[in-house]
């Protein structure tokens, strides 16, 4: 049943997008007549699709954190990114407007980040509690720590047209929220006894919200038109992209250690750092094209 719901949702969203595209493109209709002179100079960038490979920087700047947090806030693994809602990384242009198909402003909803594998942190805990069973090993070994930034982004772009190719440098500024996580405590059981120790990490974002991120992006694409003789030619732009993301952030981290029957030992410290990554991939979007006035006749 859930699969059906998902399918219907995708159909619904897909069809809604398609219907809107058709409506927006129906400039021949009378009520769009007034917009015609405007549309000759300005063009609209529709939602686009990105498929990218995101590579976080190997050095995170958290190498000297105490209490094993250097491993907990370690190097995220690289991952592929696709449009929302798949994965940490997605890049979804909601709308854009271009002047003379050159200078443009864009409005995005995006997310970036990564997952830190917990193997190193699990090893740290094994050494810290040598005579204990890691009773919550599933969580430690399989649940990564998320760097998770999501929010709106505004971009300014300039398209350089070289024959049918388009070179497009972009600069985007993001207004994201970093998601802070307070996972369930890890529980360690001492071998041969009923003594348990909980180890919990609480995160709190201390950066003024929303946080800012800075994106430098370069797209190289090509416009391709299919069905040129049809009444409504189908034009799309596809290309490759490279992007560098820099996102400063501040976190307050509290590490709680609680052996049952004993007082809780808490250690707090601040992290002021920046999440840095680059991504490269492919993109494509549909280009609104004026329809041919008279269909060609063979």
């Amino acid at each position: 049943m859930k699969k059906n719901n998902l399918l219907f949702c995708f159909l619904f969203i897909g069809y809604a997008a398609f219907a809107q595209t058709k409506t927006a493109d129906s400039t021949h209709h009378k009520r769009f007549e007034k917009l015609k002179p405007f549309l000759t100079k300005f063009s609209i960038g529709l939602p686009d699709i990105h498929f990218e490979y995101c590579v976080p920087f190997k050095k995170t700047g958290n190498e000297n954190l105490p209490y094993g947090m250097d491993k907990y806030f370690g190097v995220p693994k690289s991952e592929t990114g696709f449009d929302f809602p798949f994965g940490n990384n997605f890049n979804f242009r909601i709308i854009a407007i271009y002047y003379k198909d050159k200078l443009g402003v864009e409005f995005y909803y995006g997310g970036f980040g990564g997952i830190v594998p917990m193997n190193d942190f699990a090893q740290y805990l094994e050494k810290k509690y040598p005579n204990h069973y890691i009773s919550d090993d599933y969580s430690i070994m399989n649940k990564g720590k998320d760097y998770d930034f999501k929010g709106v982004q505004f971009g300014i772009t300039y398209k350089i047209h070289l024959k049918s190719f388009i070179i497009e440098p972009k600069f985007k500024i993001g207004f994201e929220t970093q998601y802070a996580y307070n996972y369930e405590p890890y529980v360690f059981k001492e071998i041969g006894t009923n003594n348990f120790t909980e180890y919990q990490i609480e995160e709190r974002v201390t950066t003024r919200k929303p946080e800012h991120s800075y994106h430098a992006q370069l797209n190289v694409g090509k416009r391709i038109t299919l069905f040129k003789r049809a009444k409504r030619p189908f034009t799309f732009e596809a290309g490759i992209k490279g992007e560098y993301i820099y996102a400063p952030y501040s976190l307050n981290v509290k590490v709680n250690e609680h052996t049952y029957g004993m007082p809780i030992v808490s250690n707090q410290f601040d992290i002021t750092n920046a999440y840095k990554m680059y991504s490269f991939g492919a993109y494509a979007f549909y280009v609104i094209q004026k329809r041919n006035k008279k269909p060609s006749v063979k």
Partner: protein
Amino acid sequence: MSANQQRKVFYQMKNIHKSFLLLLFTIVIFSGCSKHPDVKYNITALTAYHQDNSGASAVDASSITLPAKAYAIRLEYTVELYGKLDGDPNEAAFSLQNKVSSFNISSLTDYDSTHLAYASLNDYFLYGSQTSRVTNNATIDYALNQQRIGFTYNTSAANAGNPWQTSDYLVLMHPPTNLGTRMFIIKLDFANGTSISYTTSSVILN
């Protein structure tokens, strides 16, 4: 095609789009609805087993001598369906019909100087669905308030029919100061005024 005809076609297409969207929306909304039956059950019997929790998780004791600092009790509840199961248990909400109103564990003999025979030892045990991971707040009172005592979610057992067994665990957090032979009494009172009581076999805690 004249401008009027074009406009007509445009509006027709727009209406088709709208209708189709409405249809899809309706399907999405109603396709998620199905009958979710309640699986109501009652606890009909209780058996308790001594457990050795020295390892990663507790095992039923193979001897009557156990380490006091790694002692646990497995509570095996026998439960029966209340009424008729109408629908798929996989999509059911399981609930105990006759709620547990109180839970008490005590010792037949003096446990320590502050807990004489038959005095409640509830504060000395944690209550959980497993022994390898009990959180510090997993007290008996908490389990009682959260209606976790005797809770079962066992769709295959419900499918297979009546009765079935479900287990919870008591983990001893305060070993007795005077080691030796112990017998524990576990008593459950239910909301309808009935009770179930079980006295464990002897165990030597050392």
